[in-house]
């Protein structure tokens, strides 16, 4: 990699070094390029403002001391208090976490196995399986949601709730919701793990084989550790997608079951209050935390040299 660094200078380095434009020695050309860079930079700033300002406004008005989400009336945390006192919201939060954890575990196992099969073997029906694995990613969630709704109604399975007690709260989670979440998460896990496997150096496994490690030992000592960042990344993606999903949950849950996004949707439909902002801010915080975890785990995966001492 390092030997051909000269050839892989980036567009930015070229532009910054002025090499691309070096041949235009005239002053106007250089001035033009500098002006172009200023225009481009300010455009970039506006682009990011566009992405962040709306989210920032939601967070700011969650601390507003009035019912308005448009006029600032002083700082207050009362909406967070109201949120914490709302049993429906708390129950929805636990429902969300439960669905996300269960569906992440199942889809990570199934998706990882599928990724191994797809990357390590050539077999009949592979192309069709490829399509089946990609389809849940491409298909819009509304189409998948009504597909599942019809299926669960027709087959009569799934709407039966999984009842359990957690910290004194009684949860009743329909199996249909978990089944649906796993159905779309398998594909995402498989894609992430496959990318990791595809980038893996095959000589590592060959080396293990040459050193008389058997198939299983090679897998557990070489392949699995290398796959691990991919598996973790896939699991985190699945967890995030499951926590965030609204449409599929909304259509497959039947009446009376709320995850946090379903609850928020219901609240929005009833009317805008800063309490929704407070719930949103908590959800934003959770997403940020997940991004942070994924960054840390990815960094760990790339920096660590692979330990080959068997």
């Amino acid at each position, binding site marked *: 990699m390092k030997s051909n660094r000269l050839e892989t200078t980036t567009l930015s380095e070229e532009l910054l070094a002025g090499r691309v434009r070096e041949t235009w020695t005239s002053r106007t050309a250089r001035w033009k390029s500098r002006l172009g860079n200023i225009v481009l930079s300010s455009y970039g700033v506006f682009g990011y403002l566009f992405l962040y300002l709306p989210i920032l406004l939601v967070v700011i008005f969650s601390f507003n001391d009035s019912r308005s989400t448009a006029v600032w009336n002083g700082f207050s945390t009362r909406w967070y208090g109201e949120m914490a006192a709302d049993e429906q919201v708390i129950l929805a939060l636990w429902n969300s976490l439960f669905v996300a954890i269960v569906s992440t575990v199942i889809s990570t196992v199934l998706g990882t196995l599928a990724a191994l099969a797809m990357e390590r073997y050539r077999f009949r029906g592979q192309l069709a399986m490829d399509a089946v694995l990609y389809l849940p990613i491409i298909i819009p969630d509304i189409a998948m949601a009504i597909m599942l709704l019809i299926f669960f109604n027709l087959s009569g399975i799934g709407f039966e709730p999984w009842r359990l007690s957690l910290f004194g709260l009684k949860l009743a989670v329909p199996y249909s919701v978990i089944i649906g979440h796993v159905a779309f998460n398998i594909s995402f896990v498989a894609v992430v793990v496959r990318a990791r496997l595809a980038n893996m150096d095959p000589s590592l496994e060959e080396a293990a084989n040459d050193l008389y490690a058997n198939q299983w030992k090679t897998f557990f000592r070489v392949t699995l550790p290398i796959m691990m960042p991919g598996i973790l990344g896939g699991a985190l993606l699945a967890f995030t997608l499951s926590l965030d999903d609204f449409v599929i949950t909304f259509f497959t849950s039947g009446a009376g079951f709320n995850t946090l996004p379903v609850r928020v*949707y219901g609240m929005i439909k009833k009317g805008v209050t800063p309490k929704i902002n407070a719930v949103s801010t908590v959800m934003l915080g959770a997403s940020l935390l997940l991004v942070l975890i994924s960054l840390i785990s990815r960094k760990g995966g790339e920096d660590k040299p692979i330990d080959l001492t068997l």
Partner: protein
Amino acid sequence: MQRALRRYPFLGAWLLLSPAATWLFVFFIAPLFIVVLYGFLERGTYGGVVWRFNLENFGRVFDPLYLNTFLRSVYIAVLTTLICLVVGYPLAYFIATRQPARRNALLLALMIPFWTNFLIRTYAWLTILRTNTGLINTMLTSLGIIERPLPLFGNDFAIVLGLVYGWLPDMVLPIYVALERLDKSLLEAASDLYAPGSQVFQRVVWPLSLPGVVAGSMLVFIPSLGAFVTPSILGGGKSLMIGNIISNQFLAAHDWPFGSALSTLMMGLMLAATLVYFRSTTRRGVQA
């Protein structure tokens, strides 16, 4: 067992694959076929279906009421894609031309809104655009700039804005990847041959970034066409898209066959778009 696996390697593949394959065939492929099948049935009196085959549901799509919504959804999706392209291309170019360290930070900053809940990002625009109590109208009226609130909400404008906001990163990322991969010696060659900047872009940068543009357009067009949350929150109950009509058939009208026919058509449209996408990428591959 080990000997069998060595002799028939595909056995191992299917062993690994079977849990995921079973799950997807039962809970994804089978439901997909059922939806397509349901489109050809008759509605039952109390929801559900009557098993009598006909094409009536697909005919009803051409009822002006539904045809209008269908065409408007396509129009909104196309418009969203175009705006994302026009807004997103310079943004991708901006990121690609920064120094590597800053570039990574900018990419992360692009992904963070993308990892946050879509519903919340849509809600954010609701608080900004709402007619009487929205941020923009409140500010403008209190400053005395306008007397009557601007029609920012409950129309196609709000929906397109919400969709552009939601899917912009989907457009920027593939274009960025294409720009980043660009062979820089080509740029040098072009300017060595005295091509002005506009020509370098038109003849070199743009054609080479086209795969990213096409991929990004697909990633924006498909979810925009199937949008449900955005029109139902920012459309204010007036401006609807196919996704809302479909959901109404299941939640309110109890006309499952018609809802199924509509979603079959929607998926067909997306399939067509995907095929066009693959054809355009493979053709380029042959040329290169």
